[in-house]
């Protein structure tokens, strides 16, 4: 309890999240030790024994879901239209609620719908179902409908500005850091009207960008959410593809499914029904598509990882101590001290993660017998880290989603806090006992260990793909193994705070 009296300055925010509170107990020491030990043992087993599969010579096991009628209905154009209508409706209601509704965060739909329903909810759907956001994205839907209704406007499609190659996904990275700052640092993040204005501002920027550069170009390079959700969806068990028919040398009409290119859902829906494929695949298989990873996407993924980790770090006594020490040391900054300190923390965690990843990929490049540049190594292995980010999302937000998410049941009946009761659920009382500490402990532990083992396996498959020789692949992976074991131990340590102290 030493830290209790060190927290002399009344400055720590109760919650490090965008909105609401988590009531989690820290992971007990014995679970921490079991987790850490199983990580090390399981990863060595996986790397050394099980992972022999080379995607170059063996195609992964896949099923086309569209052979079932239910999937044809769910994956069809009419379902998408209904889902998009719902998303657009939700966006409008959220903005209106933020503007005219009660400004108490828990009595207004906007904060809970945005931080829990959308940000946590869609992250989970992306990671465990597929790129749902691409299908329902209300901004993209509204813009597409606008383009269709005014064909004259879209006739000038060719006159649009081409996306500069060197720009890559840097704009999305910048926007993502800004979003993380709002989520983790900014005081005003739970005030409904602030959120409404942010949504309006984001709409203006998005539509202007889509108008200038083209909808899909903008979504893929500058929209932080479209990009983040599609990165998470690389882990998901489903993927949309188009089968392209090509004639081979013998002249027959042999169908070749383009294996390397996961297609974004727009191309899928535009394709004729006969060539659509909705694939069920092993989780993580999508993260093996490393061909199109650009240097800026490497930074984007590392930034995603580091912000999610910083979110956890902010809840630890260690960070509170740093925060308090800096708070005392920097009276010059006045009222903005906390904001400045946490901004500094957020940015330096991004910088530290980038630096560590750079060091590790330099080591990997050096350990590769075939010549592999540091850039090539960092682009090849960055997506293998995504399962760790997902594991952390599960460990960190699951109880938050289950407990604070129940507020949505109440809020849909009274979205503006005007005392309405549209669906009769306005007086619903959230059950805080729906998930207990034990459930949270074991799911966190399981998620972190499994996420780590999957990450190790993916990195190893990628190494086999790039190096061909299994022994060389194993050798090149020692730095990655060190990085991942270290990273996961840190994640466990964060979840285990402060009991391990």
């Amino acid at each position, binding site marked *: 309890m030493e830290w*209790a*009296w060190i*927290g002399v300055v009344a400055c*720590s925010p*109760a919650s490090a999240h965008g909105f609401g509170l988590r*009531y989690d*107990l820290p992971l007990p020491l014995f679970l921490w030790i079991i987790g850490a030990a199983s990580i090390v043992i399981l990863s060595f087993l996986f790397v050394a024994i099980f992972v022999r599969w080379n995607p170059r010579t063996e195609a992964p096991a896949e099923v086309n879901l569209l052979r079932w009628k239910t999937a044809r209905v769910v994956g069809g154009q009419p379902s998408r239209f209904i889902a998009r209508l719902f998303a657009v409706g939700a966006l409008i209601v959220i903005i209106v609620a933020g503007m005219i509704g009660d400004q108490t965060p828990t009595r207004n739909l906007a904060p809970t719908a945005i931080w829990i329903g959308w940000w946590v909810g869609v992250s989970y759907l992306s990671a465990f179902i597929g790129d749902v956001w691409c299908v329902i994205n209300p901004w993209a839907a509204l813009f597409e409908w606008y383009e269709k209704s005014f064909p004259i406007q879209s006739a000038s499609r060719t006159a649009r500005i081409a996306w500069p190659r060197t720009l890559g996904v840097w704009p999305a990275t910048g926007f993502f850091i800004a979003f993380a700052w709002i989520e983790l640092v900014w005081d005003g993040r739970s005030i409904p009207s602030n959120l409404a204005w942010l949504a309006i501002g984001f709409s203006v920027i998005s539509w202007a960008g889509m108008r200038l550069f083209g909808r899909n170009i903008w979504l893929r390079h500058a929209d932080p959410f479209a990009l983040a959700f599609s990165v998470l969806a690389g882990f998901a068990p489903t993927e949309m593809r188009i089968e392209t028919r090509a004639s081979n040398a013998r002249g027959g009409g042999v169908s070749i499914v383009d294996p390397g290119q996961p297609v974004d859902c727009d191309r899928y829906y535009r394709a004729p029904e006969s060539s659509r494929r909705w694939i069920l695949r092993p989780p993580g298989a999508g993260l093996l598509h490393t061909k199109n990873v650009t240097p800026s996407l490497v930074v984007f993924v590392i930034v995603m990882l580091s912000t999610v980790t910083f979110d956890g770090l902010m809840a630890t006594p260690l960070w509170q101590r740093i925060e308090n020490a800096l708070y005392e040391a920097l009276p010059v900054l006045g009222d903005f001290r906390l904001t400045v300190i946490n901004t500094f923390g957020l940015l330096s965690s991004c910088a530290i993660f980038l630096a560590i990843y750079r060091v590790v990929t330099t080591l990997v490049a050096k350990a590769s017998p075939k010549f592999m540049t540091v850039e090539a190594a960092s682009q090849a292995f960055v997506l293998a880290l995504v399962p760790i980010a997902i594991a952390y999302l599960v460990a960190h937000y699951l109880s938050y989603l289950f407990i604070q998410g129940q507020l949505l049941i109440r809020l849909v009946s009274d979205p503006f806090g005007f005392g309405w009761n549209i669906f009769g659920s306005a007086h619903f009382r959230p059950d*805080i006992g729906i998930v207990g500490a034990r459930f949270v402990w074991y799911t966190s532990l399981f998620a972190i260990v499994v996420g780590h083992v999957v990450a190790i396996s993916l990195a190893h498959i990628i190494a086999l793909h790039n190096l061909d020789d299994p022994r060389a692949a194993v050798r090149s992976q020692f730095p990655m193994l060190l990085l991942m074991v270290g990273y996961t131990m840190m994640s466990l340590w964060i979840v285990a705070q402060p009991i391990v102290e």
Partner: protein
Amino acid sequence: MRFGCSTRTLLIAAFLGTLSRHALGEGRIVELAIRAGEASPKASVLSVSQNDEVVLRITSDRPLHIHLHGYDIESDILPNIVTSLRFTATATGRFPIEVHYKQDRKRQPLAYIEVRPR
């Protein structure tokens, strides 16, 4: 039979443990003293076990409105009188106790109630 005695004790203890896990929890009295709107010691963690019948006894030198999050128990605290809040700690977790001010002020929890699983 060197271990006979201790084994039997352990068995009995385990049996009693099983009983108490299913039976109602114990009664627990937890004290929280507030001076000038701050608890002493600051932001301490008050630990109870799941299903305990908790009596939270609060004293303050000035009138306050406090809120136990999660369990959503709110109460006015009158100065220099012990206010007792009773609840059954059914849900596990760490729940902040905060002072609610009229104006929206930056708040740090007075203390936390930590409900540990049995």
